[in-house]
């Protein structure tokens, strides 16, 4: 916002913002020196392990932990759920214990004597007809008059069945904590968390101590993706075990537990009927959908997506309770689901109309909400067509070329909020010239540290190395949790303000020496100088020496209600997938994927690009490989491991390209988050590319078996 006290420098005055910088914690990570919660070792530390329920639904009928208490090396045992408890999912925690070694803890868990009465369960969420009382009441929304709209003469109507299953977060660093009590009322916790500042509050009430007595530390986190916002029951039990044992305890989930209980993205299945006039104008939508993220059901994905201004639509969504644990936020909650359901339906309709899907989406872009998105989509679709050479490579549905490899292209649109979270920071300038910015934030691998470094160094006219970035501790000024693409807006907002406040304080101390007023000064190129008169200058060190013995400690605060907004929300993006399908083996290969993305003003283009690459790869994973497979006969997950819970490898991703939209129209909105947007479209873009290649469309993940079955069915 030009003219405000707090603003971003104009493009010609940016030295670091928007320039590629190396990730500042890259050396610590690539050398193995970065310490994650899983790596923390404390003097006398014990290892925690958990006995988990093997049934999807059961009652505990007998439990004897005495043999575990007597086991060698065991220092504390806690019954979490006792006889009579009804367990609602496989993997739920029954007993936690701590022992001197991991091996001793594992042995002790196996000594526990427990009996269950297995109870009926429901896990087959794709079959809504079998859900019975597990189906909640449908949530229905009607806009306009869809029934009448479908009656319009000449309307072209397409109907289809689409869906994607429950997937898990599969963080490489599993969930968990190390807890060390420092006195009977205080402890430190090394938590693998997406919200270091909120961890103390989550422990405090259940443990009956003040949050002020809890320090949480998280310098590095090995993946979260939305699943690490809670300290969870195992976290609380880690603290209790550590207290009972009088020793620090580390309890990180085993890999199977990580996949069983620590993260589920809800499934989404359904039938969509969608209608457009012959010229491609969308007029009517009717969908009946269902899904589950486990025992708590699921939210309602925002369909039709992102064309929610569609004049006539009805959607009915039924959440289903299944005995598979609970859903957790997964990058862009509900959006990848909504995107697949909508973009696949639109793609099928465009095929039925005989229209190029890019032409179809462009024609209907005005159905996207707000003033910004329609224009963004039109510009991005044009750019995406150009960069992918769409006109040359796209063909109408069904690759008619000879041979068993069929090639296809698909396109998809997405949107996400990504406005800033609230947060505070301190910026300290020492008389010796050293600068530190400190805030209780966390870097999930998105580049948060690097962004903070760029913002503060830019503001003070210093090189990146001139600023020390301190994050990852709840004792620091609180920052919001990292979720929903809120972090970059939040931390850039607070640290830009904090750095401007610190700089202005410095100018006050330095102005007399330069014979100028404070507002005539600027900090650039490692100097404090009079604007327009570079001869009147001091080096940064000389300027800071004017502080005498007293450092400057300036606060910065990002708040949604503050004046001079440095950030906003609501981005649009387009992705294009180019795939090859082998109709003899059913194997889908990614040839290329392109992301054309808007995220406002980009602070750190290199880490922003990595975010997009990563999101596309995660999208390839859930499009082609990932599924939480639960056995209908036993209610047990069949793949709680990494050999059968498949992720893409380095050879599975094809060639990826990222293009960021730039220019005043995009950048004047300030900084906007990027964690979620580019992970939304891959499912739809890849599904559309497969349909374009072979004329049929399986549900996700698009496995070889599903391709072959769909082709067989199509042949009759």
């Amino acid at each position: 916002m030009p003219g405000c006290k707090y603003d971003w420098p104009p493009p010609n005055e940016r030295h670091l913002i928007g320039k590629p910088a190396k990730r500042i914690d890259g050396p610590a990570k690539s050398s193995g020196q970065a310490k994650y919660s899983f790596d923390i070792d404390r003097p006398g530390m014990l290892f925690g392990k958990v006995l988990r329920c093997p049934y999807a639904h059961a009652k505990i009928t007998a439990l004897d932990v005495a043999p575990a208490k007597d086991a060698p090396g065991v220092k504390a045992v806690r019954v979490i759920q006792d006889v009579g408890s009804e367990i609602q999912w496989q993997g739920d925690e029954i007993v936690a214990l701590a022992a001197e070694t991991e091996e001793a803890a594992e042995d002790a868990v196996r000594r526990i004597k427990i009996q269950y009465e297995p109870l009926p369960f429901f896990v087959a969420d794709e079959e809504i007809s079998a859900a019975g009382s597990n189906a909640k009441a449908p949530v229905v929304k009607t806009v306009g008059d869809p029934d009448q709209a479908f009656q319009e003469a000449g309307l072209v109507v397409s109907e289809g069945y689409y869906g994607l299953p429950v997937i898990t977060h599969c963080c490489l660093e599993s969930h968990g904590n190390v807890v060390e009590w420092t006195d009977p009322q205080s402890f430190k916790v090394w938590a693998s968390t997406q919200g270091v500042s909120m961890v103390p509050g989550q422990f405090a009430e259940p443990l009956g101590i003040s949050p002020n007595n809890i320090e949480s530390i998280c310098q590095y986190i090995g993946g979260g993706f939305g699943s690490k916002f809670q300290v969870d029951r195992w976290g609380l039990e880690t603290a209790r075990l550590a207290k009972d044992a009088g020793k620090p305890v580390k309890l990180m989930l085993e890999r199977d537990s990580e996949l069983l209980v620590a993260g589920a993205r809800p499934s989404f299945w359904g039938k969509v009927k969608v209608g457009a006039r012959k010229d491609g104008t969308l007029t009517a939508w009717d969908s009946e959908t269902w899904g589950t993220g486990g025992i708590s059901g699921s939210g309602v994905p925002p369909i039709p997506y992102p064309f929610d201004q569609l004049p006539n639509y009805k959607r009915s969504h039924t959440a289903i309770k299944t005995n598979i644990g609970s859903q957790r936020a997964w990058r862009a909650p509900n959006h990848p689901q909504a995107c697949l359901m909508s973009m696949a339906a639109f793609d099928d309709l465009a095929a039925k109309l005989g229209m190029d899907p890019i032409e179809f989406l462009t024609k209907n872009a005005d159905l996207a909400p707000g003033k910004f998105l329609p224009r963004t989509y039109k510009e991005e679709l044009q750019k995406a067509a150009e960069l992918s050479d769409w006109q040359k490579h796209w063909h109408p549905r069904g690759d008619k070329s000879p041979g068993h490899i069929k090639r296809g292209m698909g396109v998809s649109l997405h949107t996400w909020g990504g406005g800033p979270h609230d947060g505070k920071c301190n910026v300290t300038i020492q008389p010796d010239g050293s600068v530190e910015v400190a805030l209780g934030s966390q870097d999930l691998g998105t580049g948060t540290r690097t962004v903070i470094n760029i913002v503060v160094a830019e503001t003070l006219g210093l090189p990146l190395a001139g600023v020390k970035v301190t994050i990852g501790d709840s004792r620091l000024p609180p920052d919001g949790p990292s979720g929903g693409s809120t972090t970059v807006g939040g931390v850039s907002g607070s640290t830009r303000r904090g750095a401007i406040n610190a700089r202005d304080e410095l100018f006050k101390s330095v102005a007399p020496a330069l014979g100028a007023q404070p507002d005539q000064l600027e900090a650039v190129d490692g100097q404090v100088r009079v604007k327009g008169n570079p001869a009147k200058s001091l080096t940064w060190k000389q300027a800071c020496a004017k502080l005498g013995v007293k450092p400057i400690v300036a606060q910065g605060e990002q708040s949604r209600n503050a004046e001079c907004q440095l950030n906003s929300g609501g981005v649009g993006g387009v992705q294009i997938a180019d795939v090859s399908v082998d109709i003899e083996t059913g194997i889908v290969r990614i040839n290329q994927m392109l992301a054309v993305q808007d995220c406002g003003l980009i602070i750190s283009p290199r880490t922003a690009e990595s975010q997009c690459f990563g999101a596309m790869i995660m999208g390839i994973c859930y499009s082609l490989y990932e599924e939480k497979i639960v056995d209908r006969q036993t209610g047990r997950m069949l793949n709680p491991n990494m050999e059968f819970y498949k992720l893409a490898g380095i050879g599975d991703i094809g060639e990826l390209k990222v293009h960021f939209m730039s220019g005043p129209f995009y950048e004047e909105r300030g900084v906007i988050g990027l964690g979620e947007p580019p992970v939304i479209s891959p499912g739809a873009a890849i599904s559309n590319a497969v349909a374009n290649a072979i004329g049929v469309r399986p549900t996700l993940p698009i496995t070889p078996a599903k391709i072959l079955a769909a082709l067989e069915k199509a042949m009759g």
Partner: protein
Amino acid sequence: MSRHKDKPRKKQAPVGPLTRRDFLKGAGVAVSSGILAGQAAIAAASPQTEVVGPGATPVTLRVNGKTQKLNLEPRVTLLDALRNGLDLTGAKRVCDRGVCGTCTVMLDGKPVYACSVLAIEAQGREITTIEGLTRDGEPHPMMTAFVNNDAQQCGFCTPGFVVACVAFLKKHPNPTPEQVDQGLGGNLCRCGTYMGVRAAVLEAAKQIRS
């Protein structure tokens, strides 16, 4: 583990199903026989067979050029010995069964999944971990290439990837992009850093050759 204070004890009969650790334990107790069947195998082993465990036993490892003495149960994996016994935590435990590659270390210069090697079986071999690739405070060129090409996000898979890439370049000093995709398929990343890894390997190859 090194901090294990209990005396060697008799083996407990597992009450649950056979776990991977049990399997490795069975594989490991009869060090030289190679028979994979636990107690029965010990009973049937020839008199010359050295039997150790199941209690903790002295283990000597040569790690990053240093000799390390530990007291470990034979079932302890090399990965857990490095992490829990020597505080070398660069190698991560993720899948814990030889799939994801985050625990990659080198044994006599060849990459292995440290979760799938028993510590006692790594005796007498030269173990190189990610920590051992930093020499005199100088990062290995592969680490520098990872930083230059932003080949890390959360970073949890990164040390294993770096070790795998170093070992890969020993075998393929001048790799093609196709060889990179083939040769590094044994390391998984959840954040999706593969584009950076591809570029980093090619840059480091150039750097190391020159």
